[in-house]
């Protein structure tokens, strides 16, 4: 872990704090209301707000998770730094792809 990765990880972490707190509150609310898929989707469809919010969430979580995974690999697996780096990038890209697809799914479909 060098200064560049450190900054990206700590800064995305700081960004994630409010994003996660709001997300947990939203989930509490949704489960308490017993919302169905229809209820949820009616709220997310065409919503710029939800799209932006969750797109930012996906981006931050993907970067943060990828760097975290990289650390775990360099410290706990026999992979060297470069290989761990590639794996982490692949993992991060996968999260971005699946995540933005999910955002599109609830905002566009």
């Amino acid at each position, binding site marked *: *872990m*060098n*200064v*560049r*990765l*450190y*900054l990206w990880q700590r800064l995305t972490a700081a960004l994630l704090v409010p994003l996660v707190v709001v997300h947990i509150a939203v989930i509490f609310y949704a489960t308490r209301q017993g919302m169905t898929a229809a209820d949820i989707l009616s709220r997310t469809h065409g919503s710029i707000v939800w799209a932006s919010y969750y797109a930012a969430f996906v981006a931050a979580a993907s970067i943060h998770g990828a760097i975290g995974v990289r650390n775990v690999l*360099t*410290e*706990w697996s026999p992979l060297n*730094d470069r290989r761990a780096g590639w794996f982490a990038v692949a993992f991060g890209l996968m999260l971005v792809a699946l995540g933005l697809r999910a955002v599109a799914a609830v905002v566009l479909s």
Partner: protein
Amino acid sequence: MLAELSVSVWRGAEAGRYETYAVPQRESQTVLDVVTFVQRHLDPTLSYRFACRVGVCGSCAMTVNGKPRWTCRTHVSKVAGGGRLEIGPLANLAVIKDLTTDMAPFFEKWQQAKGVFAPSKTRHDAIAQIRPDSPARLAADAAIECINCGVCYAACDTVRWNAEYFGPAALTRAWTLVNDERDGGNAARLQAVAASGGCHACHSHQSCQELCPQALNPTASIAGLKRRAAAAYLKGEIKT
């Protein structure tokens, strides 16, 4: 009838085993007293290090019941639960023999972290006037009393997991120099600690702070380095 301690001591090198000795328990006995007793009366082939035996040199650090400690300052009564002691060499360092370890990597990392004063003046210049209460000097003084005993290095999870990591002691010394107004080597030093294996690898687990016998706080020193290196990176003063 004096109570007896059952003391397991590591014998061998990387490959080896614990051997058990019966050592009479005495009042105010320290773990160093126990090891010395074994070597003098039970097994003269036992190898171990000590010097001052009063807690100022840092030579006698060993793993006592799983934790790195100064053996001269560890009272047996405080750690020998049920009259048992397990004594081994410091962790995270290659074992030379029995309780002695090869401290070379510890000191090499000191150099790699640029924990070395880089003078900016000569004997012909005026003596630097350093205010002892300036924030930088206070920060340096809070971290300066390290005697290189290796306890923090042995306690550190990140040292254990990451062979490149400089470790708490080397980084703490680098931090004191970052705060030393007389030092002229900060550009290279920040570059060194911002690299892979430098201060940013620290996970702030704080085992170092918990166990440092000098009551230093390497986590805080390293946190200071992290902030300084990050600021320098953002300003373009160092590169990755």
